[in-house]
């Protein structure tokens, strides 16, 4: 509000001359001081949504490596899903060449038929 008052009393030209800048009425006020926008100012669409979510510590588009869990009953692998079931591939031990595939359903945690690790389905909304 103070800014509007200032602009009304001092013509724009005077301000510019004082500031030493050339008349550039189209320059966006929100561009950073040097004139190149930041992602915060200009990113759009899916890029903007991913960046904003990551800033808040969220990862709705699964960009980061999934969190590691021990897989015990007390600390099961949390499997996010937009439906009520999701395919899980368990690599029971490091360097195993055979992956154990099974459907994980919502509700009680299930165990891998081979190694017994616990998996729990957690429902997530489709990000939009």
């Amino acid at each position, binding site marked *: 509000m103070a800014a509007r008052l200032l602009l009304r009393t001092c013509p724009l030209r005077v301000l510019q001359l004082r500031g030493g800048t050339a008349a550039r009425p189209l320059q966006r006020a929100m*561009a*950073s*001081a*040097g*004139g*190149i*926008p*930041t*992602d915060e*100012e*200009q*990113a*759009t*669409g*899916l*890029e*903007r*949504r*991913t*960046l904003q979510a990551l800033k808040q510590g969220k990862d*709705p*588009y*699964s*960009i980061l490596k999934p969190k590691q869990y021990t897989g015990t009953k007390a600390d099961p692998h949390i499997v996010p899903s*937009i439906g009520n079931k999701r395919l899980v591939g368990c690599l029971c031990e490091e360097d195993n060449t055979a992956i154990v595939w099974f459907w994980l359903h919502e509700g009680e945690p299930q165990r891998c038929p081979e190694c017994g690790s616990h998996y729990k389905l957690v429902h*997530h909304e*489709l*990000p*939009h």
Partner: protein
Amino acid sequence: MAHQAHAYHMVDPSPWPLTGAVSALLMTSGLAIWMHFHSTTLMSLGLVLLLLTMYQWWRDIIREGTFQGHHTPPVQKGLRYGMILFITSEVFFFLGFFWAFYHSSLAPTPELGGCWPPTGITTLNPFEVPLLNTAVLLASGVTVTWAHHSIMEGQRKQALQSLALTILLGFYFTALQAMEYYEAPFTIADGVYGSTFFVATGFHGLHVIIGSTFLTVCLLRQMLHHFTSEHHFGFEAAAWYWHFVDVVWLFLYISIYWWGS
């Protein structure tokens, strides 16, 4: 609006890969027609179609990335891999011509006089225009790095100035090299010396022109506020390409102009 749970870009159907393939067909067959029947129509048609394909395809990529926000961090990472792989393939392309040069120059045949440079060839003095060209390209490497830092620091005016200076240096190199080509005391037809010299430096010159064009597109995009201080991969790709062109010239200068003289 597409609802997806991943950060990747599922591109919309596009005609440009097809027009690109058709242009490749027309240019290659057109080349054969030109060689046998003295008509350049088919080849020229292919060239026009190629230019249209490039313009429209890359325009669409800019629309998808800058205006629609499809270039999320994972997508950008893929583009980086792509550019690195492409430049690597170009390195191998030039490697072939260096192989040809060293094959002929390390063990010069009796037909050449058993020496390199071959008998009768007056080479260019490496400490005249070629040395200036080296300085020009090295300076342009400095200015393009200056431009990159300007963008990252959000300094619009400096970014535009340093990028413009880089392009001007590129044009200066091209002009100097064109003059050298015109004034050279030997031609491409002068035995294996002429062949290796003009094919290697000629392809390099073509890449300088391509790199200058890429940088000019970046200059236009920067003027139109496309780049942000964090996301400006198009510019980074152009800068990588430009450094590659510079490094190829250094190898050319050391091998052909200096050692080969």
